[in-house]
């Protein structure tokens, strides 16, 4: 065990881990965070708290993580390299750890062009891999990037993202390898709809033995409607939604579509469970946190192990 992280404990125990996410509100609404976290209590092993998701200003992920922690939940603190330079990031990391946050996800973040501050500078003092390296060095060597010793290093369980569906496809596994080499302990993948393609990716992951070096949590998302399916298929870069799923969503009446989406999500989890090297699931139910419990339950993943 590298850290005190609950997620690490679940993973080390050999159970399939379950995580989900909670987008902080665009305002000073702590109750909103608490409410969302409430839906996930006892349902997941860690709750991702996004960092200015889609390049829109939100309550800081650090603050929201702390709010969840105060509720006794296990926040998974996300950090993007887009908004801060390495000084700010290191400061936040030791600050977060000081407030009891021990699990984090290192990302580069969406380009500002997609958000509501397209005029903002994209900092990218570091990229996500360099961030992983830095967090690992802070934890394992107890050193700031500048070389100085950290008095009381942050013992972070380090996560990274992987998108098996983006291009160039053959680089996707290599990039994962780089993240592992940089020090990632676990991986959360982009939403998986195209299980066939994901299997191919996993095959390469296994060939390189990466599944033995890192815990891979497969990302899933329940679709609310055929419109949402189409949007993700056509508009979200790096998202792969097969046409037959869109058709399937469209084949049922509008009021039944949310139910169909959840069913598809559960079926996907069932297929993913069979793939060697999958250590758990990351359920991204965007603004639909109340349904996570149902999904986890129907997928046979309840109750969550006590470790």
């Amino acid at each position, binding site marked *: 065990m590298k850290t005190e992280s609950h997620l690490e404990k679940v993973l080390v125990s050999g159970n399939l881990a379950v995580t989900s996410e909670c987008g902080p509100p665009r305002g000073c609404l702590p109750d909103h965070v608490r409410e969302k976290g409430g839906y996930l209590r006892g349902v997941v092993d860690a709750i991702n708290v996004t960092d200015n998701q889609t390049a829109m200003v939100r309550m800081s992920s650090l603050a929201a993580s702390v709010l969840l922690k105060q509720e006794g939940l296990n926040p998974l603190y996300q950090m993007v390299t887009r908004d801060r330079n390495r000084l700010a990031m290191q400061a936040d990391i030791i600050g977060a750890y000081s407030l009891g946050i021990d699990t984090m996800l290192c990302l580069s973040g*969406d380009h500002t062009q997609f958000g509501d501050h397209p005029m903002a500078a994209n900092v990218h003092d570091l990229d996500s891999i360099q961030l992983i390296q830095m967090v690992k060095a802070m934890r394992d060597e107890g050193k700031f990037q500048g070389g100085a010793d950290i008095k009381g290093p942050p013992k972070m369980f380090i996560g990274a993202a992987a998108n098996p569906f983006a291009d160039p496809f053959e680089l996707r596994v290599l990039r994962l390898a780089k993240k592992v080499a*940089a020090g990632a302990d676990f991986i959360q993948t982009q939403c998986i709809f195209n299980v066939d393609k994901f299997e191919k990716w996993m095959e390469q992951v296994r060939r390189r033995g990466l599944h033995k070096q890192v815990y891979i949590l497969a990302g899933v998302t329940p679709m609310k409607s055929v419109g949402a399916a189409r949007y993700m298929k056509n508009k979200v870069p*790096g998202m792969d939604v097969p046409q037959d799923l869109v058709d399937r969503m469209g084949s049922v009446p509008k009021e039944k579509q949310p139910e169909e989406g959840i069913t598809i999500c559960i079926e996907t989890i069932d297929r993913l469970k069979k793939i060697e090297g999958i250590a758990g699931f990351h359920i991204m139910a965007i603004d639909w946190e109340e349904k996570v419990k149902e999904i986890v339950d129907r997928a046979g993943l309840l109750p969550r192990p006590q470790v």
Partner: protein
Amino acid sequence: MITAERKPLEELIEYVRPFKRILLVGCNECVTVCSAGGRKEVGLLASGLKMALLQSGTTIEIREHTLERQCDPEYIDELLPMIDGVDAVMSMACGCGVQEVARRYKDKPVFPALNTKFMGASERQGVWAERCQGCGNCLLGMTGGICPIARCSKRLMNGPCGGSVTGKCEISKDVDCAWQLIWDRLKALGLEDQYLKIIPAKDWRPAGGGGPRKIIREDLAA
């Protein structure tokens, strides 16, 4: 070369409105090559300014002159015989030229006519694209000769983000994914392994993080 584009006329009009006589100075280097500030653009801008100002009843005299280079003091000296007769100078050079003219002629207001954009290359006639950000510590040896700093929207140094789709960047279909280009080229060169090396966090001091940069060739420096 350094690329630039003419500023909106509206902005330039306001710069020169208070003056009776100005000197419009072009540069026969980079900005000529990118059709932003050569002799021809000087002529076009002079006419345009005169006509725009005429409509609000202002007549302005614009003298036109194009220097070989606006970033070298000797060339800038060429303006000396003209400078006294004018109230202000508008430079059609990159930011370097504007500053150098201003430095040389301290008692004349100097205005930029161009927005200096980037160091780039001609992709084809009339199209210039960014190639270098002058980061001061070239990575191209590791990235197949394609710069991720200048050409990846996120300046990612270790591979493409999840937004790379069919070779294009997530920010626009018109922007190539630099990492796709890098990867294709590494593959073509049989240098795939190069990719697996993690490029460590960058030292931005040579890129300007260390303050205004200067190169001194001691053997040459006077």
